[in-house]
């Protein structure tokens, strides 16, 4: 079961030609890996995540995620890929005209589940992140940490193959963080989900095996 989920070869990423954020990096992530990415502010962690779900076109090198080659990928294929990924964005990216419940339902709706199934699953996840009582609120009526937990619920809703989490506990107190770590560990353990987490601080009491990539000067190195 040593399937490769992410495979990067000589990856170059940049927002402006000639100013690479990620330089000549190669790495791979296997199915059911639990990966931490750390690095200084502005080192390119979010940029790397962005490239993994295809928001940022590659400048050079090759990148394969969930069997899809991202070098010259079309809109159609990208949509297929994104359906298998759950992303927790650093700035949450909740849809502010939608209720919390509908926000969580988004990936389920895209996957084509019936309305009933969507609602049930959304409620289950809102319960997990302890925010079921906020289901009918709009994102701007929530506290920072509550918004972050909604973003997490949304990313987990459709049981994705791969979860990309950008600083998922940055705005959470210790108790709420604990809840989130348990959720992620649960998905990893029970569903075999591959998990990639950007963080500034790897929790000391995680209690599972993980891999750790460190980003510095645009280069990705595994810490062991």
């Amino acid at each position, binding site marked *: 079961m040593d399937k490769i989920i992410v495979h990067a070869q000589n990856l170059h990423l940049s927002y402006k030609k000639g100013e690479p954020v990620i330089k000549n990096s190669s790495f791979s992530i296997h199915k059911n890996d639990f990966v931490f990415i750390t690095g200084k502010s502005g080192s390119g962690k979010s940029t790397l995540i*962005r490239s993994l*779900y*295809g*928001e*940022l*076109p590659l400048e050079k090198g090759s990148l394969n995620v969930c069997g899809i080659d991202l070098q010259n990928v079309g809109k159609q294929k*990208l*949509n*297929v*890929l*994104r*359906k298998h*990924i759950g*992303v927790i*964005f650093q700035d949450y*990216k*909740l*849809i*502010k*005209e*939608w209720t919390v419940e509908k926000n969580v339902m*988004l*990936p389920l*709706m*895209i996957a084509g589940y019936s309305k009933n199934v969507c609602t049930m699953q959304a409620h289950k996840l809102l319960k997990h992140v302890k925010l079921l009582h906020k289901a009918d609120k709009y994102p701007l009526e929530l506290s920072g940490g509550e918004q972050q937990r909604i973003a997490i619920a949304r990313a987990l809703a459709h049981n994705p193959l791969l979860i990309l989490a950008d600083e998922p506990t940055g705005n959470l107190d210790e108790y709420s963080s604990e809840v989130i770590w348990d959720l992620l560990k649960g998905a990893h353990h029970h569903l075999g989900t591959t998990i990639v987490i950007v963080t500034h601080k790897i929790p000391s009491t995680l209690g599972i095996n993980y891999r750790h990539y460190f980003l510095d000067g645009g280069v990705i190195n595994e810490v062991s």
Partner: protein
Amino acid sequence: MKSLKNHISVIIPLFILLFSFEFAVMLDRVVKNYEENLFNDYSIVIASMSKLDEENLKKEIPLIKKLEPLSTKKVIDKFKNDFSPANLAYLRSSLPKFYSVKLKYPPDEKTLEEIEKKLRSIPSITKVETFEKSYTKIYMMLNFSKVISNIFTIFIFIISILLIFKQMEIWTLEHQERMYIMGLFGSPFWMKSAVLYKLVFIDSIISAVGVGLFFYFVPKTQKFQEIMKSIGLDFSGFRLLDDMSLLLGISIFITIFSVTLVILRQRTELR
């Protein structure tokens, strides 16, 4: 509440656009009608020493629709009150044959002059009396109205298009973040844009039907007919089936087109 506002802000500009369009169409019909009636009242009167052949004349001047002999009685009657019987008898004996010439469509001044010249060049014809001066004036006035209404219609068209563009800008501002986020989760094109298409589809139907009903029913009200009579207009030419489907077509086309444009513009710098 928000959703009602959304609908209204689409329906109003669409309604105005369709209304002006239909108004221009109806006006065109009214003017055409008016023009025809006006034109039917007038004809060229010619006096000829010998009988004229209609077919020959038509060959000479293709614009001629009909050549009608005028009974001289009418001509003589015109002078009955002013002339002595003796004079009238003299008049009758010396009178040439009179004809009324009807044309196919209203000529402009130049064409009219040409026709007159051609008629005069026929030896037997002694007198050609073209339209009265007042006719030319009325005709000019009519043209004037048409020019005004055309200019205004162009204006309205431009502003309405601008209005639709502004609405598009608003949609872009309102929906781009949502559509961008949905895209990040792999949402297909139709799902991202379903709301907008549904919105404008409903609204274009509402607007078209609204305008249609307005033009169908309002001209039938007594009040309206009184007003129209007083300014000498007949504004009842709405053709339920033709016009309604035209309005619907335009309405749906414009909205679907502009929504699609908005969605295709939806490209952020990143993917």
